[in-house]
């Protein structure tokens, strides 16, 4: 097929401005595709990695309403529950609010037990942190960003909680740096729950309470039954609960911000539909302008199928070039933005599956934009076309 390449190239070079503009529109579409898929990945990418055996129990009212720490023992007593951890959203930042940190106050032994393999933490650092009430574990992305080292004392601030001494600063010591296998943990900052609980102002109502419980169960198939059993225990308590899988919990939480998946899909659908119209119009006009040339090629022995193949090759080159350039430019931008958005969107990266999806879109658009040219070629009356010329 390469022998036809000069013919295809020449056809595209026929109207350079139109070809460049069409490639440009495809480029923009795929650039947007790359960026939006990265945003989607940042919000939803971690969901697939969420353990299927983890349930989240939170106050049925909202996440802002804490649950008593005493509930832990009750949850732990529910059959088929293996382990119960808890955490509080700290709302941390370093020096100024722009330096946002994904900080959680947790129960160190259970947290480490659950994520032992994922955290990438040495046994010595783990032991040091568990024993150090004012200890802090930070992801390597944070440590790198602020230049923190093990042993350094950091004035960690909260934009939610206040201390009983009137300040919002908790001095913490860096006990270890996480080198996790998953990028999302590289942005974590973990401090002791008890340090927070014992020093937080009484007026906050946090003392002796937690934001949520992380419940590990033996088998994923038990999730629904265990969830119902936990919620039943607290149905008539002052703080009724809602238990769901970690994945459902995360999706519901993100839905409160916005339906990211739907928004991204809607924008991309609009962009690609417009791109399809542009490309299809370009191809249809190109073929219409060359009716006589196609007629001549028919006289030389080119069948309709071969001519259609040439048109598909033109469309493939047009869309393929635009898509490739768009994705490459998008990748470059994502690399740049990844650093800038590290704290806000830590998972901002183009997922590998996007390349397969992009390729599928290219094939789809090539075929879709070749439909009208196909009809034009199939209906070509050679004698008439030559006579008209």
């Amino acid at each position, binding site marked *: 097929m390469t*022998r*036809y390449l*000069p*013919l295809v190239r*020449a*056809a595209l*070079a*026929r109207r350079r401005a139109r070809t460049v503009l069409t490639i440009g529109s495809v480029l923009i579409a795929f650039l947007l595709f790359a960026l939006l898929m990265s945003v989607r990945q940042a919000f939803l990418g971690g969901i697939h990695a969420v353990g299927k055996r983890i349930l989240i129990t939170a106050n049925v009212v909202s996440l802002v309403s804490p649950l008593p720490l005493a509930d832990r023992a009750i949850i732990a007593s529910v059959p088929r529950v293996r382990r119960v951890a808890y955490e509080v959203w700290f709302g941390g930042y370093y020096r100024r609010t722009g330096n946002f940190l994904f900080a959680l106050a947790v129960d160190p032994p259970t947290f480490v037990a659950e994520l032992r393999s994922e955290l990438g933490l040495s046994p010595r650092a783990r032991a040091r942190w568990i024993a150090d009430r004012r200890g802090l574990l930070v992801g390597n992305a944070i440590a790198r960003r602020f230049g923190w080292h093990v042993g350094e004392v950091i004035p960690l601030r909260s934009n939610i909680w206040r201390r009983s001494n009137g300040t919002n600063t908790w001095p913490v010591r860096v006990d270890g740096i996480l080198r996790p296998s998953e990028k999302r943990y590289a942005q974590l900052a973990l401090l002791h729950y008890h340090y927070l609980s014992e020093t937080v102002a009484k007026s906050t109502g946090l003392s002796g309470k937690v934001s949520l419980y992380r419940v590990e169960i033996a088998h994923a198939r038990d999730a629904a039954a265990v969830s119902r059993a936990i919620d039943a225990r607290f149905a008539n308590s002052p703080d009724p609960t809602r238990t769901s899988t970690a994945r459902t919990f995360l999706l519901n939480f993100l839905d409160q911000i916005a339906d990211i998946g739907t928004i991204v899909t809607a924008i991309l659908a609009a962009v690609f539909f417009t791109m399809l119209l542009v490309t299809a119009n370009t191809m249809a006009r190109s073929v219409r302008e060359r009716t*006589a*040339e196609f007629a*001549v*090629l*028919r*006289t*030389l*022995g*080119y*069948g*309709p199928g*071969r001519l259609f193949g040439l048109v598909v090759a033109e469309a493939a080159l047009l869309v393929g070039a635009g898509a490739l350039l768009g994705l490459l430019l998008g990748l470059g931008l994502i690399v740049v933005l990844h650093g800038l958005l590290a704290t806000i969107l830590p998972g901002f990266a183009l997922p590998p599956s996007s390349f397969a999806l992009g390729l599928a879109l290219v094939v789809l658009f090539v075929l879709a934009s070749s439909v009208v040219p196909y009809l034009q070629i199939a209906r070509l009356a*050679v*004698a008439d076309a*030559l*006579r008209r*010329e």
Partner: protein
Amino acid sequence: MTEIAAQPSSEPLIRLERVSKSYRRGGETIQVLDRVDLAIPRGDFLALMAPSGSGKSTLLNLLGGLDRPDEGSILFDGVALESLGPRALTRWRAIHVGFVFQLYHLLPVLSAARNVELPLLLQRLGRAERARRVAAALSLVGFPDDRHTFRPTELSGGQQQRVAIARAIVTNPTVLLCDEPTGDLDRRAGDEILDLLVELNRRLDKTIVMVTHDPHAAERARTLVRLEKGLVGEIRATSS
């Protein structure tokens, strides 16, 4: 109805048997060819002369398998073209027919050599072999070596027609169908093209069917056929 062509040679290469063709235009049926019988011997150079609208281009299209007759049969070397399906007809055309048009119909975005190469792309030939055949064809039609890379717009009318003829003969087809090949050229360039066609007919024994309304061009052929109102009116040998 017209008379059967009385051709001197043995079995003809092309035989038209009671071929009719009509078109509908504005609700009216126009009979372009009416039960035409014609035999074209192998190696003949036949000129079809007729006033405008009398069916000469239609006849050429039928001979080249670009159109199908309403009635009758066209036999090419014993094969009835109407019996061939679209794919087979396309393949047959690629092997047996070379077209030359009045307006050359070269692809403007390709160089002269690339234009000549077009029919060869359909064959399983290597790049070097294609280049060799292209160079040979262009040389045969007297196209200057230093202009192979020129685009059609950079060539004179006569040069463009030479490229078109080279494209038509590069696959060594059985028959050349020429539709007013000198119609867009001045007398001198036209004569050169006619010389070339005569040369191809005499030296390479190419069968040529040439449609023309120019008596001067028609006299260069071996046989002259006049079409009148869809019928073959006269067949005679020329002085060439």
